[in-house]
C-alpha cells in the first residue's frame, strides 16, 4: 500500500494541486486536507504548499499558522511525522517556530520568478535522502518574500549541525542570508524550502524532473521507518 501524503489547502493556496500531482507521480497517495478541519485523515506525511494563504495579510503564513489543521500537524511534527513546507509553506513553518528564522521581503523588492540552481547539502532529512550529497538541481523559484533571515547564532548553529538542506547557486535571488534556500529541524522530519520542487516533476512543464526526488525521498523515508 502506498504512503498517504496529505496536502493542505488554505484559503489562498495556489500550488496544492501541483503538490498533490507530484506526490502521485512519485508513487504516493495524495490526500487533500482542509485548513479548517483538524482531522488529518491518518496521513503519513504532510505537504504545506505554496501560494498566498489568507492573502499574505499581516505577515506571510502568520494567520495560516493558527488554522485548526495546523494544531494537529504541529503535534504530529513533534512526534516525528515528515512535514514539507514549500514557499508559503516554509513561511508557515517559520511562523509556527517548527523551523527557526523567518522569511522577509526580497532585498531588491521585486517579485522573482526564475529557474533556480540549487545545491543539496543535507541528504539525511526525510525529504532529501534520495539525493546524492552535493547534487546540483534546477527547479522553479517564485517569491516576493523569500529572504531567509535569522540571527548569527542561529545561522551558525544551522550550518554547524548540517541543517541547511539547499543553497542557492550562481545567483542569490532574494537576499537570503548565507544563500540559504531551505533548512530542516534537528530531527530531519520538518523541512522548509523556498523554491518549488512540485513544479519540476515532468519534462513537459518543468525545467527538470529534479523536484520529484523530494517526494520520492519521503516515500523512501516512510518505507525505511515503517513501523517506527
Amino acid at each position, binding site marked *: 500500500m502506498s504512503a498517504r501524503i496529505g496536502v493542505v489547502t488554505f484559503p489562498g493556496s495556489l500550488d496544492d494541486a501541483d503538490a498533490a500531482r507530484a506526490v502521485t507521480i512519485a508513487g504516493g497517495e495524495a490526500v487533500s486536507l482542509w485548513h479548517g478541519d483538524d482531522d488529518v485523515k491518518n496521513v503519513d506525511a504532510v505537504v504545506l504548499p505554496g501560494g498566498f494563504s489568507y492573502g499574505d495579510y499581516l505577515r506571510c503564513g502568520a494567520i495560516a499558522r493558527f488554522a485548526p489543521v495546523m494544531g494537529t500537524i504541529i503535534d504530529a511534527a513533534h512526534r516525528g511525522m515528515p512535514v514539507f513546507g514549500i514557499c508559503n509553506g516554509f513561511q508557515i513553518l*517559520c511562523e509556527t517556530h517548527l523551523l*527557526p528564522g523567518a522569511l522577509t521581503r526580497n532585498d531588491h523588492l521585486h517579485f522573482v520568478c526564475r529557474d533556480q540552481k540549487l545545491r543539496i547539502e543535507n541528504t539525511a532529512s526525510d525529504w532529501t535522502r534520495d539525493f546524492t550529497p552535493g547534487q546540483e538541481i534546477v527547479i522553479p523559484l517564485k517569491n516576493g518574500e523569500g529572504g531567509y*533571515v*535569522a540571527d548569527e547564532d542561529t545561522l551558525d548553529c544551522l550550518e554547524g549541525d548540517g541543517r541547511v538542506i539547499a543553497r542557492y547557486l550562481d545567483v542569490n535571488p532574494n537576499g537570503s542570508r548565507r544563500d540559504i534556500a531551505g533548512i530542516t529541524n534537528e530531527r530531519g522530519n520538518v523541512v522548509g524550502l523556498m523554491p518549488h520542487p512540485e513544479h519540476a516533476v515532468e519534462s513537459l512543464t518543468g525545467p527538470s524532473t529534479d523536484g520529484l526526488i523530494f517526494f520520492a525521498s519521503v516515500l523512501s523515508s516512510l518505507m525505511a521507518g515503517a513501523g517506527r
Partner: protein
Amino acid sequence: MARVIVDVMLKPEILDPQGRAVQGALGRLGLSGVADVRQGKKFVIELEGDLDDARRATLDELAGELLSNPVIENYTMMVLDDEAGV
C-alpha cells in the same frame, strides 16, 4: 470602551528594503538629509468595556504571537481610553 495601540517594527538588525525604498523616494521628492526610514505596522484595537488585567495579559500575549513575529519584530503596546482619541 478602551482603545489599544500596538506598534510593530522590524528589529534594528533586520534589513528593511521597503523602508530603504521610501528613503530613496523622499530624497528624490525634495527632502534632503534623510538618514534612515524604517517602515512598521500600527494596529488600533477597540475593545468593549474596560480593559481588565486578564484581557490586557491576553492582548499582550497575542501582540507577541499573532500581531508580531518575535524572530524579526518588536512591538509596543499603549492603552488609551476613548476620550483620549488616537
